[in-house]
């Protein structure tokens, strides 16, 4: 197999690849300093890191929602299904099958749950009947939403709103969902429930996921691959299983490991010697 063919077969299996992008806010604030990552078709990839590491910015760069925050991608490119997408509008991107579920859910509070879901179908052109069928499918995944379909979204619980946000994204018939902090502010049991649904969607509907999470533990449980971001750079990546067993990840993100630590002083000491920052 020649090099070119080899490349081609590789891109055929990749749904999204982000190549060395740099993002600047307000023309001065450099937030992403060269981030690269790939999401295989049908994969669940986790983007991990602390507050302010650049997870949300990365997702927004892909979904092209940066402009609303006065940010722009100044270097690198983003390929979705073999096309460069960094200059497309979010509208066009959703039409092509890539949609973001924003951090903090962002349901339309004054609209009912069902209306919220229907807004997700805004870009679809395949007719009302198909949209109706799809709505039933979404209700199958989220039976709770069906019970509350007439309620104003603003008055539903956090978990229901998160489901509503994911369901709304599903209504656009996406091949890829960018999921930002689905666990935020939810009870552990609910988080589990939502991730189970994500896995279901991934397996049955063949939707690829790129998910940004602070909850490293659960994210690595459901993801197949993970990237760790720190101050705008990818500092580590690997199979989810590998990352789960990595000593540094355990220490810094999972809160386990780091045996032999006697006092808080040792922790600090260890942090300073953190390998991958050197």
């Amino acid at each position: 197999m020649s090099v070119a063919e080899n490349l081609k077969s590789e891109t055929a299996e990749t749904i999204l690849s982000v190549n060395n992008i740099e993002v600047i806010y307000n023309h001065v604030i450099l937030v992403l300093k060269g981030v690269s990552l790939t999401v295989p078709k049908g994969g669940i990839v986790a983007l991990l890191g602390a507050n302010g590491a650049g997870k949300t910015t990365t997702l927004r760069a892909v979904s092209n929602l940066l402009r609303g925050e006065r940010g722009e991608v100044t270097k690198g490119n983003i390929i979705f299904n073999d096309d460069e997408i960094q200059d497309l509008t979010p509208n066009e991107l959703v039409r092509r099958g890539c949609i973001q579920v924003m951090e903090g859910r962002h349901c339309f509070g004054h609209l009912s749950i069902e209306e919220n879901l229907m807004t997700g179908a805004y870009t679809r052109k395949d007719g009302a009947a198909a949209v109706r069928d799809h709505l039933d499918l979404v209700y199958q995944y989220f039976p709770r939403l069906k019970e509350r379909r007439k309620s104003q979204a603003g008055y539903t619980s956090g978990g229901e709103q998160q489901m509503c946000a994911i369901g709304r994204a599903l209504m656009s018939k996406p091949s890829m969902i960018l999921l930002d902090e689905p666990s935020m502010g939810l009870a552990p049991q609910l988080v589990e429930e939502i991730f189970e649904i994500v896995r279901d969607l991934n397996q049955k509907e063949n939707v690829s996921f790129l998910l940004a999470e602070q909850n490293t533990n659960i994210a690595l449980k459901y993801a197949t691959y993970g990237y760790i971001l720190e101050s705008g750079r990818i500092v580590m990546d690997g199979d989810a299983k590998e990352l789960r067993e990595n000593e540094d990840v355990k220490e810094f993100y999972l809160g386990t490991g780091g045996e032999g630590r006697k006092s808080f002083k040792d922790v600090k000491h260890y942090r300073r010697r953190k390998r991958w920052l050197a």
Partner: protein
Amino acid sequence: MELLKQIFIEPFETMYALPDLLLQTLWEGFVSGTLYSLIALGFVLIFKASGVFNFAQGIMVVFAALCLVGIHALGVPAYLALILTLGVMALLAMSVVQFVMKPLVNQPDIILFMSTIGITFILIAGGQIIFGGEPKAMITEELGLPTGSSVLEVSGGIVIFQHIDIAAAIIAAILIAGLALFFNKTKIGRALRAVADDHQAALSVGISLEQIWVVVWFAAGVVALTAGILWAAKSDVSFALQVIALKALPVLVLGGFTSIPGAIIGGLIIGFGEKLFDLYWGVPLLGGGTESWFAFIIALLFLLYRPEGLFGEKLIERI
């Protein structure tokens, strides 16, 4: 003591003694109230969907009416002229979005507000160049609007209902019902409410803000055209009409900048309020002429004690 009696007792005695006068005043209040509501509605539509306080709404009323009369003056039949005017309003909506909203998106609200003042001047100048500045008569009869009046006898007195006023109230009601239906039952209407709720999220699900803006600016144009026809049918089409748009400001303060029911109820309250106040308190106590400022005093009181209005969200600081 005498003053208190004049304030608290005599007006009500007059109301009781002359019910026909009261009824006539209420009717007039209702009619001007519906028109204030219509104008305020135009503001609310645009403010909700784009956070822009559209200073040009008043001149849009005049411009739409001018277009209609001007096109008709060229020999075009009235209904065709109406349709063509709608086309002009659609064109206006698209140009505003293309040349003002799109380049200025994400700029501070005050910049967008200033740009709508710019639009105002462009429309004034454009209107004068194309159609001339002199007042024109509205083509009321050609449009099939009634012109007569009916008289109702009430306990010895009479109340006069101008047919054009009745038509105005009905048309305003139909327009409002139509808009409500559009917002609640159609895909674009749903998207519009979504944008009003959370425009970032709307963007993220693939709703095109530009499309929505064109729709709301066009809707505001239709509302402006309706208000222009109905108002000008009672006077003339002239640039002086744009000052009635200033009356929409107190209506907005009263009803809240983001509430459509608020605009309607606020308009009616101001309409009833200013007519009643003028007749029963203004004339005997202050020598009349209170209609021009009554609404603004109400607005001032609201700004002092309930700045978000009757139905609004606390958003007024965004202007």
